[in-house]
């Protein structure tokens, strides 16, 4: 029981496997004589899913942690800047129906909430003078609408003018991380099939039997095994049979049709935000990389059929759709009941998956990798305690993400299919979200609604979606929230000023990408 946790074996070399390997190796300083050893085993012929293209600003910290230059990352992973998401046609489906969930917090958010003032001003304005919430309180919407980058070539790497994450090519990213992890961070890489899982008498995994393509058998012992094997969940799901909690009763999406769409011109503009456009029984994602767009239709096969979904995707993309190869990916919405079982922890798709509406997949990998790295159990004796914490933390996080994704659906006024109507049915809405919605009838989402240390989405994100979707909070009994109009007017004016300054100063997303390829960022 006092055997120290030193040898960590990761199964799977997709985004999840390499991010976890990089975090662990960097945190435990594997290259400078640490007793911790990180081994990654990847099956030579399992293709990675490779459609995870959206990240959170947390990715900047992960890259910094691993000692990666932002210039190299952008050059080699086809990466571009992402400043949030634009939700089109989610409210009522009309052509001018859109709102933003930007990455910059509402102006002055940490001191005093502008939401009540915005609501009050809007109630008094006529239709023409109404400001969307995201545009009234945040300068980033204008930056995105004009296709501008979140920084300039003079901004130091990983610094910003406006908060940002990335869009990236997941396949290239895995290869890039593999090179970095093996060459710089001391991760050992083995390309081999896992053919057997060998247990200790206490049920822990003792070792993996592996076979390389030239039929060499090798047994790999380990103290901790990390399952990054993707949807098949080789260790946690298949070996340990940890149950899967299905949440398709809340989130109905179960299929994705994905395509790579080439740009019309080499220098076509690149959107600096994810575009998510609601459809009859789902929605279409649209992510701009350097050389192509990644576009996909996620839908619920309970409410539409593949041919209709395919047609919707074709209509969205236009004439060039006919020459593209469509990949169909089944989506099983949900997660494992526990994530860390005995000396095995699942990270990535092996732990679970939800529709990519808020790019929660990669951020959950980063959060998992960080927690495993920081709380790596000193020995087997304390591992069960850390496992328990890990399971509590991530169960909480998955529930919060499910709530937040569901929030996008429940306020829609679309009624073009039962998909939307059923999404509004209280029977499909988690009680935790129903409670929040009741509280928010009289005040805006606030940090006091989200008091755990393990929150994923801040209250500001709930505000952006709630008020973007047209929710009315009634302040008649909470008028004390409107007691500092002077402050509010100052902040609204400041936001206006920031819009002018940012849009005058920032280059287009494409222009900045070209400059990074030519000159690179400096470190300061």
């Amino acid at each position, binding site marked *: 029981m006092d055997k120290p946790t030193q040898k960590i074996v990761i199964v799977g070399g997709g985004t999840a496997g390499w991010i976890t390997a990089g975090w662990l190796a960097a945190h435990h300083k594997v290259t400078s004589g640490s007793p911790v050893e990180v081994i990654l085993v990847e099956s030579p012929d399992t293709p990675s899913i490779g459609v995870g293209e959206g990240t959170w600003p947390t990715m900047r910290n992960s890259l910094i942690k691993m000692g990666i230059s932002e210039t190299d990352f952008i050059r080699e992973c086809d990466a571009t800047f992402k400043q949030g998401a634009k939700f089109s046609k989610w409210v009522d489906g009309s052509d001018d129906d859109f709102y933003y969930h930007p990455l910059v917090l509402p102006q002055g958010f940490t001191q005093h909430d502008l939401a009540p003032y915005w609501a009050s001003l809007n109630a008094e304005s006529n239709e023409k003078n109404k400001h969307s919430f995201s545009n009234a309180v945040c300068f980033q919407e204008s930056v995105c609408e004009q296709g501008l980058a979140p920084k*300039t*070539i*003079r901004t130091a790497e990983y610094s910003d003018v406006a908060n940002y994450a990335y869009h990236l090519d997941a396949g290239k990213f895995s290869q890039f991380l593999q090179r970095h992890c093996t060459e710089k961070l001391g991760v050992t890489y083995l390309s081999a099939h896992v053919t057997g899982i060998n247990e200790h008498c206490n049920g822990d995994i003792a070792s993996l039997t592996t076979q390389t393509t030239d039929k060499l058998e090798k047994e790999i012992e380990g103290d901790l095994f990390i399952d990054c094997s993707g949807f098949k969940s080789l260790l946690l799901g298949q070996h340990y049979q940890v149950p899967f909690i299905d949440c398709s009763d809340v989130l109905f999406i179960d299929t994705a049709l994905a395509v790579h769409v080439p740009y019309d011109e080499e220098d076509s503009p690149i959107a600096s935000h994810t575009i998510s456009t609601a459809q009859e029984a789902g929605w279409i994602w649209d992510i701009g990389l350097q050389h192509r767009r990644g576009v996909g239709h996620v839908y619920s096969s309970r409410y539409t059929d593949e041919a209709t979904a395919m047609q919707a995707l074709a209509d969205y993309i236009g004439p060039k759709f006919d020459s593209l190869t469509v990949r169909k990916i089944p989506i099983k919405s949900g997660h494992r009941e526990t994530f860390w079982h005995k000396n095995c922890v699942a990270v990535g798709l092996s732990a679970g998956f939800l529709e990519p509406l808020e790019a929660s997949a990669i951020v959950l990998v980063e959060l998992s990798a960080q927690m495993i790295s920081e709380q790596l159990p000193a020995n087997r004796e304390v591992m069960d305690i850390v496992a328990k914490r890990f399971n509590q933390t991530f169960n909480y996080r998955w529930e919060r993400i499910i709530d937040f994704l569901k929030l996008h659906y429940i306020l829609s006024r679309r009624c073009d299919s039962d998909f939307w109507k059923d999404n509004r049915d209280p029977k499909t809405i988690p009680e935790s979200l129903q409670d929040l919605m009741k509280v928010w009838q009289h005040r805006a989402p606030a940090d006091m609604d989200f008091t755990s240390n393990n929150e994923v989405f801040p209250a500001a994100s709930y505000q952006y979606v709630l008020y973007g979707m047209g929710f009315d909070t009634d302040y008649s009994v909470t008028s004390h929230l409107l007691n500092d109009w002077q402050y509010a007017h100052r902040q609204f004016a400041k936001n206006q000023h920031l819009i002018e300054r940012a849009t005058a100063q920032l280059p287009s997303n494409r222009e900045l990408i070209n*400059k990074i390829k*030519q*000159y*690179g960022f*400096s*470190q*300061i």
Partner: protein
Amino acid sequence: MSNLVQLTACEHQSLYLDPNKCGQHGSHLNMIPVVLSEFRQLITQYPIVLTKNGDTGAFTFVALLGFAEGENLFWHDDEWRSIYLPLQIRRQPFFVGPKDSETGEHPLCIDINSPTLSKEPKGSPLYGEQGEESEHLQEAKQHLAQLLRGEADNQAFLQLLQELKLLQPLSVEIAFEHANPTRLNGLYTIDEKQFNNLSDAQLLRLHRTQFFEPIYMMIASLGQIYSLIEMKNRRDSPVHNR
């Protein structure tokens, strides 16, 4: 607008040059690029810092001339008042042209719109009666040569500063007597903490490459920010007592 043309004795023989007017080329600049070989002269009056090129993000050494955009505190009454005039100004109106694809040489160019040039006999002629180069023209060529060499020195120095992580953003809040406070942004200087933590081997390297001196000169030159503040206070003072 400047208008650069290749300088030739036959085309430009009749031109006169008034070097006292070259300061006009920098009258509306609040910083000017400088080279390593003039640091010693610059520190008598100018803060030497780095800024980033707006197009490429590359670092450039500059002498600070003012705080607001377009503010050159050394410029008043149509005159650049300083002990030392930066090379980038003194070389006016001459430029090194882009490499000639046939000869492989950089032609000497001139800005024919420069206020220093005139067809009237103001200043001294560019060329002698026999078409020989005037003393001023020869001097200007030397300045250009110094700038070209200096650019190479600058790059070597810069590379070492970046490699040893000796640069840091310079962020100063500045209060004036008669103007609104301002914040210096987008400027960089030596990271003294990092400088003091260099290893013996790194220090030896600085010594061998002779980059110790410019590092100390840059640090010391920051004190001239106070001179600039004083110049601005005096300039903006309701009682003109320049």
